[in-house]
């Protein structure tokens, strides 16, 4: 029943320390990264191969879903927009895509209401954010490689 709790994987997860009382002063505002790497690292126990496999799965699934979303928005198929955006948001939230999720939730909301008022614009924003996620993860998972788009 008991499995060995010890994990010797060599990835670099976030480093939580023992809680200690914090100062009352608010922390300075920092830009939110496209992906919470803590969640990805935890979900894979920090194993590099597992992270890559999970990220590949996410990219494959999300690329298809974004294509479906684009088609559904163009065809004004509100229920399809709701269904695909909901599924895409679930996976993205699970993996800590913090900026991507609200855009998908907005598409889901508009789809559920049956009125795709600004869905085309929101879709464009979501597609742009997805590209940022791809670039971010490429840099995180291949730190030695130049960031995509850097070599022009």
């Amino acid at each position, binding site marked *: *029943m*008991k*499995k060995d*709790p*010890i*994990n*010797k*994987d*060599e*990835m670099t*997860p*976030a*480093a*939580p*320390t*023992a*809680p*200690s*009382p*914090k100062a*009352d002063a608010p922390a300075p505002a920092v830009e939110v990264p496209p992906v919470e790497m*803590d*969640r990805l*690292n*935890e*979900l894979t*126990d*920090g194993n590099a191969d597992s992270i890559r496999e*999970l990220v590949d*799965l*996410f990219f494959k*699934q999300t690329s298809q879903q974004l294509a479906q979303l684009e088609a559904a928005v163009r065809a004004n198929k509100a229920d399809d927009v709701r*269904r695909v955006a*909901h*599924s895409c*948001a*679930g*996976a993205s*939230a*699970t*993996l*800590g895509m913090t900026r991507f*999720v609200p855009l998908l*939730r907005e598409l889901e909301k508009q789809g559920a209401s049956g009125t795709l008022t600004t869905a085309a614009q929101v879709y464009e924003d979501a597609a742009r954010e997805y590209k940022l996620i791809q670039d971010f993860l490429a840099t995180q998972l291949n730190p030695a490689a130049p960031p995509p788009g850097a070599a022009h």
Partner: protein
Amino acid sequence: MKKILIIEDDQIVSNVYRNKLVVEGYQAEVALDGETGLKMMRTFQPDAIVLDLVLPKMSGVDVIKQIRSEADFSKLPIIVFSNTYLTNLIQDAWKAGATKCVSKINCPPKELLELIRRTVGGGVVSPALPKTEGVPATKPAAVVSEADAEFQAELRKTLIASLPATLAALRAGLKSLIKSGTEVAQLKHIHELFRRVHAVNGNASIAGLVQIAHLAAALEALLKELYEKPKNINSSTLRTVAASVDFLGFLFERGTRPDKQGIPPASILVVDDEIISRRAIIYALEKAQLQSVSVEDPNAAFKLLSENQFDLVFLDVDMPGMTGYELCTKLRNLPLHKKTPVVFITVLSDFESRTSSMMAGGNDFIAKPFLFIELTVKALIHVLRGKLQPAK
């Protein structure tokens, strides 16, 4: 005589280990925080260090880093006590240079003693046995076993006597947390609750009260995550903390029988149409060594439910073909699952979730995206409750 330094902030736990080591022929000293531990290390010159990872003032990982940075101690064996549920912390301890990492729950005093013997040698040589060349003599196994059993029974008795006071303190801490009006106040009360639960985990572990230790360890990890990432403090996570404290009270009454320890095997069904979400749920369950079956199709899930007993079911709400609520209503009509705990995983608002969940016959729900450890805690509560209090 071999010398062991114990760095552990819980005085009960550290004294139990020290006394055990002294009785067994070691020279042992205790430091109650990391900074003191480092100072004592330089004067006491131990043969090994036993280190708790969660310490005041200086974290256990930082203590390891400091030890490894000093030439005289770069090879010193460091045996780390960890909480199984603090996965990232264990990884950090390995990377910092820990020699061995053991779970507190799996390492009562006699196990620790064996580990120290294997790591640095030393300990009692029984006068009753002639020493054979090249073979370290030990006490007769039966004598050791009997003494250990008595020792642990005494520890358990003492701990059980203190449980009502412990529960009262936990409930008071929870009440303060729920009433907190600001994030600063919330964090203060979460930290206090964390320290108390950490102590429960340590004390229950050395007394062999494994179920209490497991739930306390999982709750400790959840509180740590909430403290470090306050954005995760919401009605779902606070409800889970409250349910955990409540269930600790239940375990204090019914989970102390020595013959009823360990996490019982459980059969769990996970139904979610999205593969990454399923994977996250399975991962969270595996943290508590809970095995599960997962399916993406609610109709396939219903077939499985019709033919098999499950101890717990996790249901996504929004699935094509059949919603989680519809599936729950259907499964309640199956004789096998009239009382099976059902937890909905949903993005819906608190009020909507509570109402819809209850109307469909669900027992609980958790907000998406959930903290992995939050789902682990919920699963432990439902599985243990089901085993200790079978449905009527």
